[in-house]
């Protein structure tokens, strides 16, 4: 019983330590780094909603979302640059990249909003390896720079 406060303090210290250490270390499953972050934005990761400061690491399975004033730009491990505008949702479905052979796969889904892209080494090595999905279509990326906007079902967006 008398030891309990010490245990709590140690636990709190370890938690703090984890918070400080994790963002500084490039984990193996980090696939990209946030380079630009403006306005309201979040990363949804396994049920959690994380802030998106410049320097935040992005992982496979993350969904990057922005509010009406938000935009986020991410550089990926194969030099692909992706950025989203306001009211957007971009899921990083799959990212695999071998830096020696340049073989890999990169699949994302723009669920809503706008996306600007500059493809990197994965698309250059194998033209069928990079795909961007929207609710309406699949885009096969054979290079290099392009922009994507999702439409909205008729009647759901008065004023647009």
């Amino acid at each position, binding site marked *: 019983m008398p030891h309990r406060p010490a245990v709590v303090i140690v636990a709190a210290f370890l938690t703090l330590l984890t918070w400080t250490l994790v963002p*500084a*270390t*490039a984990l193996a499953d980090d696939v990209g*780094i*946030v*380079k*630009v972050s*403006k306005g309201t934005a979040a990363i949804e990761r396994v049920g959690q909603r994380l802030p998106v400061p*410049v*320097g935040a690491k992005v992982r496979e399975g993350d969904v990057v979302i922005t509010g009406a004033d938000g*935009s*986020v*730009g*991410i*550089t990926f491990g194969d*030099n692909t*640059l992706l*950025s*989203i*505008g*306001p009211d*957007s949702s971009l899921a990083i479905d799959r990212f695999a990249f071998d*830096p*020696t*052979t*340049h073989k890999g796969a990169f699949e994302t889904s723009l669920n809503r*909003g*706008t*996306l*600007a892209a*500059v*493809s990197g080494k994965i*698309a250059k090595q194998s033209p069928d390896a990079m795909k961007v999905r*929207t609710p*309406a*279509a*699949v*885009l*096969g*990326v*054979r*290079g*290099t*720079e*392009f*922009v*994507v*906007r*999702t*439409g*909205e*079902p*008729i*009647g*759901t*967006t*008065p*004023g*647009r």
Partner: protein
Amino acid sequence: MIRAVLGITIAALLAGCAKMPVVAAPPPPPARTDLYILLPGADGKAGSLVVTHRDQVRILSTPHAAAKIGVPGAVETATATAEETRKAFGAALSAQPPRPTSFQLYFLLDSDEFTPESKVVVDAVLGDIARRPAPEIVVIGHTDTVGADDYNDRLSLLRAESIRTRLIERGVAAEQIQSSGRGKRELLVPTADQVPEPRNRRVEIVVR
């Protein structure tokens, strides 16, 4: 005459009134369409984008080529103006991360010793790092075609790791630098196999 004019005016007013209910219920505004535009690359050339919507496939392969999907099932192609692109994608485009920059360092034969000119490049790399948000450095080693594949894979990685160490010595944080070796897969100057070529014995430093 006056009566006739009056009659026409009343008729016009009535006609106007008759139209009122139609005007009062405006048609729904057009929904935002799906819009995909291929842009010219940094070198001015465009790559290509294969758009598949249901059973339809369109290939965009010229600068500013655009595909629109308004009505489900129909893909329209067009050429987008710079104004249209800026208006629809201004915010996303202005959030693009800075482009990666690439530097080349050259080595003496069979060694990880720099050529004298390459020493200057390291300073340029450090200057570039300082200008970027959340900078990362990727050090990629390359060899010429002399020797077996696995020998060159090892040598290229060795060269990359030697540069990584030097960058750390110059004050770059270790976790910001990754290194990899491409062996003889990416020749700067294409040659046959087993050809010594100093320009292929190099390390590329990508700052992004």
